[in-house]
């Protein structure tokens, strides 16, 4: 979706056009959902946050600044909604974080199918991600999962580019160390996946 098309859709959606709003939701819901899911590690919270972020964005389109991309704006809103959720549920969040840091996830003893293997890798990765400091985790997700540039991440997080790079480097190193206990299993699962 180029910028001209995006602005046209935004005008239509701001006037209450359902079809235009639906295009935005279908285009961005997957990326926003995975961003939030990686940040919090819980699908139910990710769904709530994504829904709230879309609703806020689509009901506040008259405040949208056309200098930015809609996706950037949507991610900013989603991040705020997620941070608000953390503020409201701080004790729950901390206890889950402790759980996540508890150690390697228990793997099933039966022979793994392809989906099981994918799930195990995903769980291991999520556990390792939750062991990272939030800023490093977010920078890693935005850079490697969402494939944003360092400049855009720096703007999004209001950080200097050097700090973003530093977070990236340290986050990758730490993630690798956190994944070390899972390494052999991940390699086995990778073989299963072919």
């Amino acid at each position, binding site marked *: 979706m180029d910028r001209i098309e995006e602005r046209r859709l935004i005008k239509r959606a701001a006037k209450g056009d359902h079809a235009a709003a639906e295009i935005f939701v279908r285009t961005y819901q*997957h990326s926003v959902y995975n961003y939030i899911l990686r940040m919090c590690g819980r699908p139910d919270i990710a769904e709530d946050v994504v829904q709230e972020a879309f*609703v806020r964005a689509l009901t506040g389109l008259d405040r949208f600044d056309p200098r930015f991309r809609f996706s950037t704006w949507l991610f900013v809103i989603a991040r705020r909604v997620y941070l608000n959720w953390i503020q409201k549920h701080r004790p729950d969040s901390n206890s889950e974080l402790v759980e996540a840091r508890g150690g390697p996830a228990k793997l099933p003893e039966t022979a793994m199918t392809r989906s099981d293997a994918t799930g195990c890798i995903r769980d291991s990765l999520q556990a390792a*991600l939750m062991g990272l400091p939030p800023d490093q985790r977010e920078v890693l997700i935005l850079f490697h*999962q969402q494939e944003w540039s360092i400049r855009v991440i720096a703007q999004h997080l209001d950080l200097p580019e050097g700090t973003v*790079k530093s977070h990236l*480097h340290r986050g*990758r190193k730490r993630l690798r160390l956190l994944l070390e206990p899972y390494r052999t299993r991940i390699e086995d699962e990778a073989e299963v996946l072919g």
Partner: protein
Amino acid sequence: MNVNSGNSGNGERDGKGPSGLPVPGTLPTTSELRRRATSFFDREMGPAETIEFQARLAEDPRALREFEATRRAIEHLKTGRPAPDLTGSILDEVERRRRLLGAHRHARRRRVSSVMTTVGAVALLAAVFFGVDAILPQLGGAPVAKHRGAPPGPLVAVPTAVDGESAAPNDALALQLRPPVDASRDLRWDISGSPMLVGAPTDIGRGGLPLETTSWAPLGTSGVWPSLFPNASVTRPPAAAMLIEPASPAKPAADDKASDKASDKASDKAKDKSESGPKPETKPDTKAKSPR
């Protein structure tokens, strides 16, 4: 074989020439490979440099293992979980909130319009009131002076008026305020005529005013004064004088003459009677009471 710790910045020891490109035949160290891996993962490495880096990496198993572990983690990070379709719920919620916002805005607009209507009505009433007030004098309505005071006279007349007032004799002013009192009248008449000084306390009615009673007696002839001052001599006023009403302020001259004549006659009779012998105390006529 890590023999080159702290070698950053040294091109030859890093396996790079002065231009920054790797020198052929020299082996980059593990830390150098790590640094180049970082720039590879940061997407800062060009295609040619990437091929050269991967070739060098294959020669260092430890760096290769670290690189592969990191690359695999990032690959897994890229493969996200399939998101549930939230389109319907999101659009429904957007519609619901828009309706709420619309209703809220409509209510606010309605409230503002009602306030504006009220203010307009008040302004219209005020305008009508002042308009009628301005038009009425022309139609012969309420006089202007009643509302706005007398039209101002010339300022020159003010000192003249003040001088005139100050020049007027004080006696004339006093006469205007208080009618002249006959100085020849005996003050005791006024005292005896006052019902407040005689009679029993039980005769006092509401508001401290005396009740109508038939046992009026002139001061000094009955009541408490003789018992308090047994040796005191009191000159009784002439009995006939008690029958004379106080002069009315409307006819001061005629009443004065009449009262003078009456008092003369009464005094003559009283002299005659007093000479003939003591008489019992006469009750004053109720007409002797001063009119209230």
